[in-house]
């Protein structure tokens, strides 16, 4: 029989998320699944409403990309009562784990740690003052990626975060905040930039160039997501490293769901996606070409 699956997406606030939506739709189509898509415009209440509507509609399963970790117990319980399996995408929730079937996510803290480790290795003990572009204040990627990075560089006294300010995950704020860093700290005193996502890094690269410095050389740049534009920058030597957050969370999620619905196999509670590190050693131009049509 045809499967109907509801997908509650946070919104389309970044290129990465748009890509995730595209990929999810593609995956569903590939498998002949009827995907009900609900965009929550970045609001949790809309996601809860969407979930409840899915339940009322009697879908076979629900994919949920939760905007925030807390606050899902009640509605997940309702889904459980209605015997609708829920799979979490790209972020997990703070609810008892019997309320959802599985979570397909990367480990946000791990991503930050990879970035920190990479920088620590790259500097190899040389003194380095780091500036940090945080994500939207209060969002879980911003909190976890900050935490992971700090863990990653812990124990290296040569590495210091000298400034940290939010760039709201956007290119333009990334650029604006980087401009002020360059003035407040002095471009020559900044050795590396860590950005919580690639978009902010792309904006910051422009600010660095406009200040007459060479991004990637004068200031090392490491960021997270692996969106096409950062690979382009890396191909030009203007950025140094990115950690991939795959937009294909739906693939493994739907695999697990299909298996469960077919014969009741329960998947593991956490399907972790790879947080792959890309550096200048990779063929960034090829990656760019491959990714650029994914809807980023």
């Amino acid at each position, binding site marked *: 029989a045809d499967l109907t699956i509801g997908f509650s997406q946070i919104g389309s606030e970044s290129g990465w998320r748009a890509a995730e939506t595209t990929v999810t739709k593609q995956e569903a189509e590939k498998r002949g699944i009827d995907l009900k898509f609900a965009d929550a415009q970045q609001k949790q209440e809309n996601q809860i409403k969407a979930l409840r509507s899915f339940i009322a509609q009697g879908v076979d399963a629900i994919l949920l990309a939760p905007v925030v970790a807390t606050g899902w117990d009640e509605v997940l319980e309702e889904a459980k009562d209605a015997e609708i399996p829920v799979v979490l995408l790209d972020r997990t929730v703070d609810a008892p784990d019997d309320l959802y079937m599985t979570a397909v996510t990367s480990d946000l803290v791990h991503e930050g740690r990879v970035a920190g480790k990479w920088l620590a290795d790259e500097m190899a003990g040389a003194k380095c003052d780091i500036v940090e572009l945080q994500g939207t204040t209060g969002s879980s990627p911003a909190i976890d990626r900050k935490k992971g990075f700090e863990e990653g560089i812990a124990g290296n006294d040569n590495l210091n975060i000298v400034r940290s300010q939010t760039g709201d995950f956007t*290119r333009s704020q990334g650029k604006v905040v980087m401009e002020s860093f360059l003035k407040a700290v002095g471009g020559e005193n900044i050795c590396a930039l860590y950005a919580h996502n690639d978009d902010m890094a792309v904006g910051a690269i422009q600010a660095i160039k406009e200040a007459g410095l060479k991004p990637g050389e004068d200031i090392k740049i490491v960021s997270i997501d692996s969106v096409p534009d950062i690979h382009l920058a890396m191909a030009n030597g203007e950025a140094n490293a990115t950690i991939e957050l795959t937009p294909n969370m739906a693939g493994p999620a739907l695999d697990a769901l299909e298996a469960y619905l077919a014969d009741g196999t329960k998947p593991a509670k956490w399907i972790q996606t790879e947080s792959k590190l890309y550096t200048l050693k990779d063929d960034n131009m090829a990656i760019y070409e491959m990714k650029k049509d994914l809807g980023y």
Partner: protein
Amino acid sequence: MSAHVHSTFRRIMPQLIILIAVLFLNFLVFPDFFRIEFQHGRLFGNLIDVLNRGAPTALLCIGMTLVIATKGIDLSVGAVMAIAGAVAASLVVDGHSWQTALLGALAVGAICGLWNGVLVAVLRIQPIVATLVLMVAGRGIAQLVTEGTILTFVNPGLIHLGAGTVIGIPTPILIWIALGLLVTAVVRKTALGMLIEAIGINESSSRLAGINSRVLIVSVYLISGFCAALAGVIVAADIKGADANNAGLWLELDAILAVVIGGNSLLGGRFSILASLIGALIIQSVNSVILLSGMPPEFNLVIKALIIIAILVIQSPTVKHALYILRASAEPLPSDPIKEAKESPQ
């Protein structure tokens, strides 16, 4: 003429004083604040950043001042920025010249303004709701154009509008100053300014005096859409990409705030574009204080809110009146016409 300069100066005096105070605050948190250097072919310094980063708000508040003068409000400017940026980007990505892209974006902005204007002036829908429609839907339209992605482009002509310089001065600065001067000149050297004020104060009377209020109201929304489009192009050009979701997000609130800090009444009537522009610079200077202070970002909003409340309280009619009394206690005029008139219903 000199009387005219004098009265303009008196009008913008409070805003100037506040601007200087906030700039001084910047100086306190960052002593190099006023240093400007010439580096790599461009002026480089925090003061330049304030002028440059203030460009989108400044452009928005030119149109917004006129809209507010007619007793209206335009909540859609942020969304229109996103649409215009998306249109410009998609045009150059499709291989058109930057001139075509700019014109296309401005035309789309003007159309958005026209839509708002018709809703307000012809269908008589209250401005807040009328423009709320485009505020909600506009970002969707922009994403429709970019298909949800950040549409990046490499066209140097277009990029120059946002990130380039002319004789060392960042282009956005020149654009907003030029447009500000142009619009001010147009409304003040012609009768437009007075007629717009008349509509804002009493539309019924103005119409009976033979003023074509509908066309004028549509025009101010059109200008607002145009300004928003220009701001949208600059913002997109600045980051070499159209970010439909985030471009101009909540910037309408900054623009309205700038107009109010500029001492213009939200109830319409008398307006000063110059004062609004200074208002925009004040807001940008406040942002600058936050960035330069190095405080953790969770304090950003509280700091901004407190500074703004302080500014607004100082500017409120009641406090102004009290100051006026203080200042005038030596002079024979015992009360302020503005305050007294507020008490009078007639």
